[in-house]
């Protein structure tokens, strides 16, 4: 599972789309996956349809599609993620805090894999290896994800198919402020894209 990427050296000049993403301000590919990703926001339903390709969000550098906004201090992010397309078991939909848009930026995220394995993963310093805490696989479904940052503490909750949110635990993290907060999708392969529907999205300061 530990796969190193073709280093997508992303120039800072990302073609960011602004102003049409509800709770978020921008959308772009990170790490330059060969297949371009996309994000659509439906203001009437509050739903985000995010299509992302890329090797993975893992190892020393990432490839995925990201929808984000900049935030500082403490906040809470909640979203319900549902894969709309089949794909590799370890395709990922994530709630992410990311320092920069560089492919090898520090980050921390709460991920749900395509096979229904929740995970908390983080890269502490630029171009370092990614750390992981993988939880037992509960199977594919509709997953509600919640992440709260209080100082350096990041606490995460998940629930599957409408069950009450369950706290998985917390980690500590030195990402600081400001940080790019958002939703990400990676297909775990450059040969395909995956689409994830995010609904009931809230970002609270």
């Amino acid at each position: 599972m530990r796969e190193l990427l073709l280093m997508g050296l992303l120039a800072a000049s990302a073609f960011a789309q602004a102003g049409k993403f509800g709770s978020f301000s921008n959308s772009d590919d990170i790490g330059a996956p060969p297949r371009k990703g996309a994000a659509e926001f439906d203001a009437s339903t509050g739903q985000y349809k995010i299509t992302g390709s890329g090797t993975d969000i893992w190892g020393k550098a990432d490839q995925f599609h990201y929808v984000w906004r900049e935030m500082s201090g403490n906040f809470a992010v909640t979203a319900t993620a549902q894969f709309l397309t089949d794909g590799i078991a370890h395709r990922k939909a994530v709630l992410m805090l990311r320092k920069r848009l560089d492919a090898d930026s520090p980050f921390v995220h709460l991920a749900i894999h395509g096979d229904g394995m929740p995970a908390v993963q983080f890269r502490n310093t630029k171009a370092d290896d990614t750390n992981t805490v993988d939880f037992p696989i509960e199977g594919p479904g509709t997953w509600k994800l919640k992440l709260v940052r209080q100082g350096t503490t990041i606490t995460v909750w998940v629930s599957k198919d409408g069950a009450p949110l369950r706290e998985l635990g917390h980690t500590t993290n030195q990402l600081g402020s400001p940080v790019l907060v958002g939703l990400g999708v990676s297909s775990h392969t450059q040969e395909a894209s995956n689409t994830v529907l995010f609904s009931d999205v809230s970002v609270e300061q």
Partner: protein
Amino acid sequence: MRHLLLICLLSGAISAQSGNLGIFTNSGDVGGPAIKGSAEFSNGQYRITGSGANMFGKQDQFHYIWREVSGNFTIAATMRFLGQGADHRKAGIMVRQTLDTDAAYADVVIHGTGMPGLQWRSKQGEDTNVFDIPFDGPGTFRIQLVRTGVRIYMYIAKGGAEPKEIAHTEVSFRNPVLVGLAVCSHRTDASDTVVFSDVSVEAQAPARADLTLSLTGPGAISRHVAEFQCDEHAGALGLPSGPFAVEYVNGAGNSLAVVPVGGRSLIFSNVTSGSGARYAADRYIWWDAGSRGVHLYSDSLAGKAETSCHALSAN
């Protein structure tokens, strides 16, 4: 198969004791805490007293009782703190690369408050990573740590329940590792005592399967075994740190090499090479380039790992 390795690695900085330590071989303070710790084994119980600032950040201070193990294993223990102490005093099961205060490690710990934690320092001198689990107060805990390749699994139960898998992380240790029990008071001016019972360490028996292949083609099938040893990067690629055997099978236009990678027999197949014999399997290349040496390398492991090997003998 149960591997019992009774080799003691004693750094000069460690005041280690040996004697009757049950299933472990040594005990000692790590990181030089001001108040010395101790470990006693009697009536099937380990009574471990440890002081120290913490096991966290870039370095650790605690009392450790350990043995050496290679490969995959399961270690389990029932534990409870005696007396009062700091909220974040910690005790539990630790896998550690060396006895250095800033060594790579992974542990499954219970804090004085009853909060379980999975903690790890991926590389020597780095910061500790932590994931803490929701909890409902102090008590007697059954804890278990399972190593499977790079994965470190955490199992926890409170009271008399059967331990439940909570999560796993990944840490790339070289073999052998030190595995044992650790106690830290989370303060330098006091120590804490923890009683561990029902402690077991089981090295997992590797699953074995015999494979018979019927091949059609010209010529006879030939097999031979060669013994190799690789340099200090062997562990990063999952090779044994000591000597190991590679079996070569040739016949019907196939040329295979069976190499022990990550605790399993990985079958490499010959692929086109400009010089020597180049074999590929999974994300690895085993390349016997004759006078230019033998290498195992991978472009898709972290850091594009490579190790240089030499043949010890051939038969």
